[in-house]
């Protein structure tokens, strides 16, 4: 079953569970219940926006099913889940309830609801809640989240844990909660008050209070609430929430803490309008990227898959010219040079044109990199020529500058560069048109697989929170080189700084300054198709090589290569993070 859209619940679980088994599945539904109505009610708003139809009255049941599914999945051997993604057909995934049921029955052919919970009379829980007009329903489950006091009323006060929910507060909120998502403080209010109290006396399931988990979910919700406040220009409120985030973030450990810190910093910059004034020093960015290259497989995957596509496109050609939009330190090219050197039939002549930003300190950085590559090429007997172009932005270039010679086959390569062009109107169109003028045999692109370029700030914020949480999670697993401890810690730290800068730009900048405008593969596909390109499928060689490369990484269990209509995506567990695709001119 191909799912183009990951379940919000599972995303939260993956990103934030960090090893705690009773993850946010139960109460972490960021969806709130609507005003509970006797007749079973309407579909939950938030989930409906995402495409799922869940009645408010079914929320408890759905939560239970999610927990069961999680349990069943946990007890199944890791590899046996892959059939869920590929072979099984699940109908109507928007009907969350029956979809979960079918998944559970797939995994657990015995009666999935054989445990006592199935006999748990859901009505019993609602009996008490019907006494107050609340849009909050008690969702029984393994995790209980202590309620949070509405911070607008008492910014500095943290409620003690496990207090029973007060009906009065509920009525204050419920008046605004029936509004639709895009309007009013209702949404953030319900985020805050989404925490649920259960009635241990009545529930037939054991209830466990897990503090740090509660804090984790609260942290996420506070971050989102703060972003929402900023979107509505409620700066005082945002400031108050920022302080809360500070407290909550230090109570976390590991990836969650780091992600929260970076996002909090970015939000603070936005609130106080402290935009990073100096443009990013490219030498420093290169350095950070080198550490990122060393710590985790994303860049290596990108390089190796793109190289494989280029190799296959150049199978019989003797004069090759590669134009690299993202020269940096040239780490992609040694592997290609080596593969060309060992090509049956001899090495072709290889010409490389590298494009980079102007350097701050007057050194000709591109030339240095080119010189080193030339020395490498010479030692392995490949005829090599290098030319460097300095350009502030790719849109400044045009085809005539490249001096394409007679009989040359051209390839264009771009690693995480194209999304930056989306900051200025017309940029990407100009670049695509001059690439077409170059008549390349192949155009390889690697981009982040996420939509961080929507018009609504809140959407961008939420998307990027999930994306970077997953990314940081994968970094946690990347500790390598035990005996050379200090080096790897430094690498990891620098990688985190590298990602942190992206977060900062994405969240706090606007307009032409915001260059981290990531878009999904589907969006790029549409753009390329309408610009006159057609896809080139990456073959099984690329897939095998990528899989092998990932198997070599110590944290290897989490990384997954996926093939998506001829493009390869690298992800962490269920979430694809970067995508490689190749294109040629449509005939």
């Amino acid at each position, binding site marked *: 079953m191909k799912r183009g859209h990951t379940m919000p619940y599972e995303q939260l679980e993956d990103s934030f569970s960090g090893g705690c088994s009773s993850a946010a599945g139960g109460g972490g539904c960021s969806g709130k219940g609507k005003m509970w109505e006797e007749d079973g009610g309407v579909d939950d708003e938030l989930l409906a926006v995402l495409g799922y139809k869940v009645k408010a009255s079914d929320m408890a049941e759905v939560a239970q099913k999610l927990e069961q599914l999680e349990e069943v999945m946990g007890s199944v051997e890791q590899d046996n889940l892959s059939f869920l993604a590929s072979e099984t057909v699940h109908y109507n995934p928007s009907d969350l309830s029956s979809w979960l049921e079918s998944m559970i029955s797939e995994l657990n052919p015995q009666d999935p609801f054989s445990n006592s919970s199935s006999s748990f009379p859901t009505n019993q829980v609602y009996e008490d809640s019907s006494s107050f007009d609340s849009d909050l329903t008690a969702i029984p489950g393994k995790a209980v989240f202590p309620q949070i006091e509405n911070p607008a009323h008492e910014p500095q006060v943290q409620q003690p844990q496990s207090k029973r929910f007060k009906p009065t507060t509920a009525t204050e909120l419920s008046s605004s909660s029936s509004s639709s998502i895009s309007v009013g403080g209702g949404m953030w209010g319900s985020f805050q008050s989404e925490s649920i109290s259960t009635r241990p006396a009545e529930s037939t399931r054991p209830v466990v209070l897990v503090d740090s988990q509660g804090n984790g979910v609260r942290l996420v919700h506070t971050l989102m609430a703060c972003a929402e406040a900023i979107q509505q220009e409620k700066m005082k409120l945002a400031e108050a929430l920022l302080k809360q985030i500070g407290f909550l973030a230090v109570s976390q450990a590991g990836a969650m803490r780091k992600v929260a810190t970076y996002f909090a910093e970015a939000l603070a910059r936005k609130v106080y309008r402290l935009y990073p004034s100096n443009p990013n020093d490219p030498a420093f960015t290169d350095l950070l990227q080198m550490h990122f290259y*060393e710590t985790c497989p994303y860049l290596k995957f990108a390089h190796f898959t793109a190289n494989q596509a280029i190799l296959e496109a150049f199978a019989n050609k003797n004069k090759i010219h590669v134009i690299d939009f993202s020269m940096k330190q040239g780490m992609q090219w040694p592997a290609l040079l080596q593969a060309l050197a060992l090509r049956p039939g001899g090495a072709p002549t290889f010409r490389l044109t590298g494009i980079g930003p102007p350097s701050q300190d007057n050194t000709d950085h591109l030339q240095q990199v080119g010189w080193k590559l030339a020395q490498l090429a010479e030692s392995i007997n490949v005829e090599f020529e290098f030319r460097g172009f300095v350009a502030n932005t790719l849109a400044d270039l045009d085809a005539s500058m490249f001096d394409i010679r007679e009989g040359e086959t051209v390839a264009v390569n771009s690693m995480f560069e194209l999304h930056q062009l989306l900051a200025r109107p017309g940029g990407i169109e100009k670049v695509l048109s001059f690439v077409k003028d170059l008549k390349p045999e192949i155009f390889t692109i690697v981009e982040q697989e996420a939509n961080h370029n929507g018009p609504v700030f809140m959407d961008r914020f939420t998307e990027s929170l999930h994306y970077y949480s997953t990314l940081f999670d994968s970094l946690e697993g990347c500790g390598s080189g035990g005996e050379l401890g200090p080096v790897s810690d430094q690498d990891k730290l620098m990688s985190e700084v590298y990602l942190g800068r992206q977060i900062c730009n994405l969240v706090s900048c606007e307009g032409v300054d915001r260059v981290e405008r990531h878009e999904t593969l589907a969006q790029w596909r549409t753009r390329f198709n309408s610009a006159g390109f057609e896809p080139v499928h990456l073959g099984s060689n690329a897939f095998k090589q990528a899989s092998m490369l990932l198997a070599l990484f110590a944290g290897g269990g989490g990384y997954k290569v996926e093939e998506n209509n001829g493009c390869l995506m690298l992800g962490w567990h269920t979430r694809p993070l970067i995508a490689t695709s190749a294109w040629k001119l449509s005939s």
Partner: protein
Amino acid sequence: MGSKFFINDNQDVLIEILKRLDGRSLGVAACVCKQWCAITQDDSLWEHLCFRHVSPPPEGVRTVVLALGGYRRLYMVCVRPVLNRLRKWKPIGVDQSASDSEVVRRVYWTRHEVELSLSLFCVDYYERFLFGGGGGGGGGGGGGRHGGDAACTSSLMFLCNAVNV
């Protein structure tokens, strides 16, 4: 005094024997005495070790490998870790019910693994060159790089033994 056979007098026999050892034993052999140490420095032994189980043997590789640092380094930095890791790895598409022993004891390695090892080796060379002997380029990134044979560059650090998380 009868004619005794002393292995150190028969270097060609010694080499033939050493050729059949696995990597670890070859390393141990290098510690036996000065003569054995000198013999095991010879790259052809390591070449044999790297590629004797590759079928068909790759062509033209020798010039490239020698240019990038030699077979001994190739073995230590790339081949040994790659083979070790991949032996425990179940490739995608293999029938999941295949017994563990089949996969774990794989000795022959495929063209893909050879290519991958060579690519990684080339990256290693470039990195050493970029940050080491190539002048001040790179701004001293990733401090702690050692110049010795055995240490691998940071980009291949992921092949070193990981700490169990």
